[in-house]
């Protein structure tokens, strides 16, 4: 049992090390270093030796010194005997090794004898592996988006793998793509349009949704259950089947290429989920408050503005942020309804930009950064509100 676990442990930890070093090598390659091989065989042998040595030495050396020693040996062999690379690369390797030896330091020869230790090892390393794998897979495209926007066409042609940013150059050269898209492609205007459309959608949606949600949550009327069930069913209805009729109707009414047209469609598509989210929250507000207000002869308008809204600021903010995000990211309707470059939203403008094969990709990426940053910023900053919005309204595709 112990032998089997020892083999399993050293193999898994070695694979984990190979994975770590490989990611580091990919990132280093993308900084323009010429690394042409992962050297998997060598790292495999080292990894195996380190994990076995770790088990063999056990507690005889303090684990801190053990980690340092292992890391230094590895860096020395990998960095100086195998490849001649800059010092920051080796520092990175050292940190990775230090992290790795720290991770394996909790496994001891005795511990491997325990029940289920095979599965515990598997589970632990799968989790570690998963965290790193998913972080890499998710962040990598975002990282590439950002660094590409700072490169020039020529630099990318010379070495398609060199994404290092030269901070020494002039600010104007560094942000050249951004200057170009704002100057030549009118991105400033598109930001304004996108902002107006998104904020407008939020305001109109809330104006319509708060009274409706209040009625659904509190008042008794014929057709109430029908209304509240149809809200969600309507929300599941696909946007793509609305496109052709709306296109024909909007063409005939002259609403295409207009902000009003977009506002109407965006509001209608976000209303059901806004009502659904708000009425759930309104139901949780104690009824006694309103009863007191009714005795004070407050009208429904007074009840909503003086009692309901102040009490449901968190829910209203999460609806507002969620609706803002949907409107800001929306692409299908802006593609269908906007064909005049004077009325584009940001998403549509980027798609238009890509339609021209001549457009250098760093402009496209600069545009992508411009459209992505506000959303990510809002998301990270208001995460608490947005997550509750996402979970409640998550039927949105």
């Amino acid at each position, binding site marked *: 049992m112990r032998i089997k676990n020892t083999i399993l442990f050293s193999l898994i930890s070695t694979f984990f090390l190979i994975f770590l070093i490989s990611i580091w090598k990919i990132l280093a390659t993308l900084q323009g270093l010429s690394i042409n091989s992962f050297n998997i065989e060598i790292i495999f042998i080292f990894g195996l030796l380190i994990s076995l040595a770790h088990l063999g030495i056990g507690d005889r050396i303090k684990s801190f010194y053990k980690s340092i020693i292992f890391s230094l040996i590895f860096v020395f062999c990998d960095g100086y005997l195998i490849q001649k690379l800059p010092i920051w690369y080796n520092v990175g390797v050292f940190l990775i090794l230090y992290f790795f030896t720290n991770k394996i330091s909790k496994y001891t020869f005795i511990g491997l004898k325990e029940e289920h230790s095979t599965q515990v090892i598997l589970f632990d390393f799968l989790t570690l592996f998963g965290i790193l794998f998913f972080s890499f897979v998710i962040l990598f495209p975002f990282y590439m988006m950002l660094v590409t926007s700072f490169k020039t066409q020529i630099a990318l042609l010379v070495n398609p793998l060199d994404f290092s940013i030269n901070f020494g150059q002039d600010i104007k050269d560094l942000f050249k793509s951004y200057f170009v898209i704002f100057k030549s492609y009118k991105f400033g205007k598109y930001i304004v349009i996108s902002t107006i459309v998104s904020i407008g959608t939020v305001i109109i949606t809330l104006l319509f949704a708060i009274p409706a949600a209040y009625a659904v949550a509190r008042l008794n009327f014929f057709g109430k259950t029908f209304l509240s069930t149809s809200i969600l069913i309507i929300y599941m209805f696909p946007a793509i089947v609305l496109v052709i009729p709306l296109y024909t109707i909007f063409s005939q009414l002259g609403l295409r290429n207009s902000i009003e047209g977009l506002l109407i469609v965006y509001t209608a598509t976000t209303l059901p989920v806004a009502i659904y989210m708000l009425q759930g929250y309104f139901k949780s507000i104690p009824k006694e408050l309103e009863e007191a207000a009714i005795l004070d002869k407050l009208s429904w308008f007074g009840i909503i503005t003086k009692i309901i809204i102040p009490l449901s600021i968190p829910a209203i903010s999460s609806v507002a942020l969620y609706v803002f995000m949907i409107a800001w990211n929306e692409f299908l309707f802006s593609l269908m309804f906007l064909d005049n470059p004077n009325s584009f939203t940001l998403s549509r403008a980027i798609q238009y930009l890509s339609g021209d094969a001549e457009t250098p990709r760093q402009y496209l990426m600069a545009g992508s950064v411009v459209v*992505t940053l506000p959303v990510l910023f809002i998301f990270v900053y208001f995460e608490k509100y947005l997550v509750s919005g996402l979970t409640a309204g998550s039927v949105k595709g």
Partner: protein
Amino acid sequence: MNDTLANTEKKTAYILTLPAVLLVFSIILFPIFANIWISFKEVELKDIRIPEPRAKKIVKSISDEPTKIKILYKLRNSSLIQEIRDVSFQDNFPKNFEIKNLDPRCSFKKYNLKCEFGNWPAKYRENFQVIFATNDGSKIDKKNLKSIKPKLDGKSDNILLNTNFTLKNFKKVLFENEFIDLLLTTFYYTFFGTVGSIVFGILTAQMVNQKFYGRTFMRSVLLFPYVAPVVALAYTWELLLDPNSGTLNSLLLNYQIIETPINLLGQKYIEISILGFDFKLRLALTTVIMFEIWRYFPLAFLFILARLQAIPKELYEAADVDGASPFQKFFNITLPQITAVISILFMIRFIWNFNKFEDVFLLTGGASGTRTLPINVYQQGFAISDIGMGSAVSIVIVVLLLMFMFFYFKLLGKRVDEN
């Protein structure tokens, strides 16, 4: 007394809900019925523009005669295919104007020129000219004249509103449109996209549900693909996967893993042999499904994580006492607890993936074997400009969705009964 209270309550409720209901009905429900109507018609994109009578006003001074002026109206029918009936024309002039040559179709009263032009066939054009003079000998202000715009009116048939129906569109959709292929592609895309995102959602939720340093940060990061705009993400992926200078291909070439670049988004099939079995993988479709999974697993992650955090800790503690292994705990405690959430997720994601348009459109435009039904709606309606066909495909989508929902709820209903 109670009755009136209930009545006012009702009235208030209707007033409060009416704006929202009206908007949603007119923008979401009405188009669905309009779709049915259009799908039985032969309509093309150019037919939906309402033909308009138009006039371009050109003011020309006559040399040596400053008190006279020539006005040329370039009249035309804006439509290339439809006639306009009973075209009427109106233009206003300053009070000191006199008309010199009156067309028999027109009359000039109270400084207002009125004409009845009768019917204009499609593509109709006419240069219509009038000469004016001032009756008090004053000079003519050309700019002022130009700023007054003529008014034109006319009647035309709206192809959308007539009652000629045909089954042609549906015949075309079902029998000439490589329908089976379309359906299969859509199904692969939807099914594997859904299952993939749920599997990754379970893995990541399980992962984040454990305690580790940077866990809240990890949770935000995992949601990035879901909250970022699809346009930006799709173009970034396209750039990464580009066969000529894309980062992925450059990396693989650099490490000598491949010898020639792979066109992940532009190649329909790739030959793969595993253990001596050769089979063809639909490469572009697989890539698009990968993107789909990458973008939507965060939703599954969020749902499942919320459910995982609600599982009582006692269950795991009891399992520990019984000496259960981590995998036993996962399969016997965690998985049964999240099946309900998974089945809801499956339905939501299935429906939404089935209708997903932007992702495929931005990545491949529906080329190299990635043409799904929603892409077909766009291609028929806007690329081939056949609005009727596009609507017919939309109707097929709605019918398939309703069928799916029907079976889903029937199955789910049965399972609930058994419990």
